[in-house]
């Protein structure tokens, strides 16, 4: 694939070999970068350091932080069953997304991506949930999942079907995570489908035609040609899906608050509860730091791996 930066070095001022020119160029670069730099420093980087600082204290949030306890928060965190459950749930969501959501999206893309009449219409429909906020989505599904058959649509319909029992979708510890996963799928499948459609459109027709001439059937076409050529798109889709799954918050919080009994707890609800419900801000900061480390580690490893794969391919 193409290299990251252009070979051609562009000078912004007519090239002369003196230092004032160099200085001017540097100044211009800095000015252009300054606004973004300020934003990112104040609101991204500085908060990380603040979090790291507070994570070393036992702080109730009222008044200044004075009770220094070192790494105690982290020790407590790693030993907390609920946090471990949150991490586990996060991983489950990631895995389910990869195994179910993405293949389904790919399938839809393959169908819709071709010159099928009405594809613009279907594309528009599938992508719609993405533009609705997580809040609207969550409240919508809260109504659908209401356990009372005379109020919740889902159970109302199930009630009619003879051998199915209405369930407490969001209140049953074993059903709640799948129920939330359905909502996540509903919201994001269109997005991933779109990615794949675009990727598909970038596959040159000639390759497919050449393969057809060589006599491949459609199954072989998909496995040996389409998918490998979609590798870049798949890589991105997977990355976004994992990062997105790790940080889902509003959806879970509004539907279940992480309950019942932490059955649907994820890292961000855990963080929110300890920071903004339990008043334990030092501990909450520690959770934030751990979340950050997990996200960063994953990102770095993933990018390394995929870069290597690309290189070898």
């Amino acid at each position, binding site marked *: 694939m193409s290299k990251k930066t252009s070979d051609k070095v562009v000078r912004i001022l007519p090239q002369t070999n003196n230092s004032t020119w160099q200085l001017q160029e540097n100044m211009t670069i800095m000015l252009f970068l300054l606004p973004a730099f300020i934003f990112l420093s104040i609101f991204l980087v500085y908060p990380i350091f603040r979090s790291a600082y507070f994570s070393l204290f036992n702080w109730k949030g009222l008044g200044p932080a004075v009770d220094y306890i070192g790494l105690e928060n982290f020790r407590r965190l790693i030993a907390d069953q609920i946090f471990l459950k949150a991490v586990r749930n996060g991983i489950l969501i990631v895995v389910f997304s990869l195994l179910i959501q993405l293949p389904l999206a790919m399938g839809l893309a393959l169908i819709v991506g071709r010159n099928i009449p009405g594809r613009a219409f279907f594309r528009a429909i599938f992508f719609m949930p993405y533009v609705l906020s997580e809040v609207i989505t969550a409240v919508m599904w809260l109504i659908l999942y209401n356990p009372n058959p005379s109020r919740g649509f889902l159970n109302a319909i199930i009630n009619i079907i003879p051998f199915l029992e209405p369930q407490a979708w969001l209140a049953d510890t074993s059903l709640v995570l799948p129920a939330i996963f359905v909502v996540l799928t509903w919201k994001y499948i269109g997005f991933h489908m779109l990615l794949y459609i675009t990727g598909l459109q970038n596959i040159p027709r000639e390759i497919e035609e050449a393969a057809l001439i060589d006599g491949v059937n459609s199954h072989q076409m998909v496995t040996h040609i389409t998918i490998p050529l979609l590798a870049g798109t798949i890589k991105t889709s997977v990355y976004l899906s994992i990062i997105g799954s790790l940080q889902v918050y509003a959806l879970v919080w509004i539907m279940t608050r992480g309950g019942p009994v932490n059955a649907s707890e994820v890292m961000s609800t855990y963080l929110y509860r300890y920071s903004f419900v339990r*008043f334990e801000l030092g501990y909450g900061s520690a959770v934030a730091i751990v979340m950050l480390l997990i996200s960063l580690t994953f990102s770095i490893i993933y990018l390394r791996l995929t870069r290597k794969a690309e290189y070898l391919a």
Partner: protein
Amino acid sequence: MKKLILVWFMVGILLASGAFTALSAEVQADPVTINWWHIQTETEHRNLWQNLADQYMAENPNVKIEITVLENENFKAKLTTVMQSGEVPDLFQSWGGGTMNDQAEAGLLKDITAYLDKDGWRETFSEGALGVYAYDGKNYGVPRDMGMVGFWYNKELFAQVGIDNPPATWTELLDDIEKLKAAGITPIALGEGDKWPGAFYWEYLAVRIGGEDAFVKAASREGSFTNPAFVEAGEKLLELVAADPFQLGFLGATWADEATLMGNGEAAMDLMGQWAPGSFRENSIDSQGLGDKTGWFKFPMVEGGAGHPNDALGGGNGFVVGKNAPEETVDFLKFISSVESQIAQAEVGLSVPVIKGAEAGLTDPTLILVQQGAADAGYFQLYYDQYLPPATGSVVNDAVQGLFAGTMTPEEAAQMVEDSAAREIK
């Protein structure tokens, strides 16, 4: 073309909403502003507060009262965030107890002891109720309501299955539950998703089984929450859960769900505080609630328990004053704590009066029962999650939810509370 439409569309929304808000904007730039946060989202109650505020503003044109109404859980969340910055509201809802004590310790509340001592304002309040809003000898707020938790029940449904008298013992309660279930009626409504409604059960069982002694010792750290009384409370709770008396999905239901069930006559019993009838009305389809089908009985006695059948679990509501509040805030507080105001509150079922002379406003027969019950109690226990430090109170609620969900044993639940208490109560 599309882009043009888009741009005009956004401009249109902006103009429309700008115009609308301009039309409904209030008079600006008054010298004194009081920020008042309360949790009365029910229409009737909300309007009562607004009317009082309007009245006061009419009489005091230099004062502007800005009301923020938040639902219970949102209020707690919002308050935390705002506490950190030290920008405390001037006047806000409080249940007293450990949470308020923490706030006072951190210097976030205004000491209004002197105001209370003036002109006999202090004497207008029932002493016990006022005491809830005091810490370390100083007063930080005043109560408006004090009541207790008890079983609200639907008399019609009880009569339907032939229950003539409300249960007085735990065994009778379980029997009645069976009868109701057999008739296809949901015996108990419970919004355990919010956690605190279910905590009442465990706390009352502990009150009945362990009496005043067990809790006071545990909370003061002379004893422990692993005291057999608390473990047995858990076991009894499991008995209740095993009887399957709650509605489908109770583990994820909210207090509002609970109130809706009761208000629409879809459940027979509800263990709840004195604000229940108002909520039943608010959440019923016809806005009538249970009306004269409303009944109330005290939490049943547990056979062999060390507690007394009159012991009460409960609490009240009040307002505390923020540290930066303008002087006028206390004056306004006095205004809404007047006898007339209390009578008005009692009439809409907002408050069980704590101001002497306002009892007359209490006309609802069941609320009178509640008030009587509170007065009769020798041992009155403030809800655990308000009495104990917030972190421990939170743990109590979580532990009880674990009992309801079957993910925790009574021993584990008690131990969890004990661990938190050991860590938080010094």
